[in-house]
């Protein structure tokens, strides 16, 4: 069973090939399980309004807000040295970030319109 880390057995795997007792001997493979498909609402960050306070980054229960070392200049000329984006592979659309944002820079938009 010495598979590399993050191995995920293909969905067709039969009972003989699965480790007994539902043990998962491939540490970290939950990363391969993209939970973003559960989402009905997606958070969209307005980079113009965002003040880079990192509150969304702190509150996200799934570490799905990513801090990028990427510069951004607003139309009004304000310069930031970082940018916050959403990792849609794992964001389940709970809306905590939008709720906590002090400047209402995050909008929850329906996945299906």
């Amino acid at each position: 069973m010495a598979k590399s880390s993050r191995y995920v057995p293909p969905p067709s795997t039969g009972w003989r090939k699965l480790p007994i007792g539902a043990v998962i001997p491939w540490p970290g493979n939950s990363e391969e399980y993209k939970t973003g498909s559960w989402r009905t609402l997606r958070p969209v960050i307005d980079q113009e309004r965002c003040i880079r306070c990192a509150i969304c980054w702190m509150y996200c229960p799934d570490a799905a807000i990513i801090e990028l070392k990427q510069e951004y200049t607003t139309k009004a000329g304000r310069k930031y040295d970082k940018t916050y984006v959403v990792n849609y592979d794992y964001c389940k659309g709970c809306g905590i970030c939008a709720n906590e944002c002090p400047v209402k820079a995050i909008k929850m938009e329906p996945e299906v319109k």
Partner: protein
Amino acid sequence: MVKRTSLSSNYAVAYAVKMADVDVIAAYPITPQTHIVEKLSEFIANGELDAEMIHVESEHSAMSATIGASAAGARVFTATASQGLELMHEILHIASGMRLPIVMAVASRALSPPINIWSDYSDIMNARDTGWIIYIVSSAQEAFDTIIQAYKLAENKEVLLPVMVAFDGFVLSHTFEAVDLPEEEEVRRFIPKQVTWYTLDPENPMTLGPLGPPEWYYEFKYQQVVALNKALEIAKQVDDEYGKVFGRKYGLVEPYRLDDAEIAIVAYGALASTAKAAVDEARKNGVKVGLLRLRLFRPSPVEEIAKYLENVKAVGVMDRAISFGAPYGGPVFADIMEALYMKGVDTLLSSFILGIGGRPMYLHDVLTVINKVKEIAESGRRTIETYYIGVRE
């Protein structure tokens, strides 16, 4: 050198667990099991057994702590009875589902209400579908031997399932019999400590007990089916090996005077001893009766049941538990009926309930059963009645 001594089944179990050199025991006291863990505490306090005794706050926690220790690679033990077994019921499924080789002794006792600390097998019957291997033994010697066999069976790589060893509360748990104790070294050679299962290890991290969504769950349950079926074969091998080393073997069922029998009775636990005496007594009066004692309850030894009962005209199954609202008869009766029907054995079956809540089971009770089975055989007619032996009108 074998040492012959006088032990109750509870103490016999404690000696077996000590000789098995267990690492962790987690238990909550309950009558009639308490002597087992009391004795084990004594062994630990005296330095005779190097194990951790976890005093938990309930049986639910006892089984949970046992699972945790087993998942860390320890050889583990716990014991319970009656309400305690009921309280740990949820966790029994987790132990078997996680494929941990836990061994547990159960001094079988009736269920409340009314509160009753005496013996019957209602507790064990409720644990039937938990995925555990379940032995029901008939003597202190067999209790000792079966605990040792249980570790060998549970830890077998092709099995990896928990094992329950049950015996009558009080009737066996508290009465003293001669028991031959083998050398501790010999026992340890028979069941050397090898961690054959997945364990928690910081060097080699893994997830135990994860979520199993519909696309995965079914396969893990099927693995349990296969392992439990395999356990039937391995249990036989272990019993044979044990017999070679220690000179005692029991089989998965024990036939008694069945060779030329025309009718048969089926029993389990201590009742089987009374039943043997009753068979002898009935035979003195010319009744060709034999006894089949069920020793392995789960997985069910279907082949043996069919083999020993295929030539008798009628079979009476004595149950020490009631299956309320069942289509017909007691829980083991249902097993025997299923086994015989599916094996194409056509015999006149009847179900007898006795020894409920510690109600004494006398020789004449079993003789009543034998006479009824004889009547049914002579009449050649199927009966649809369940006989509740000894219940007052």
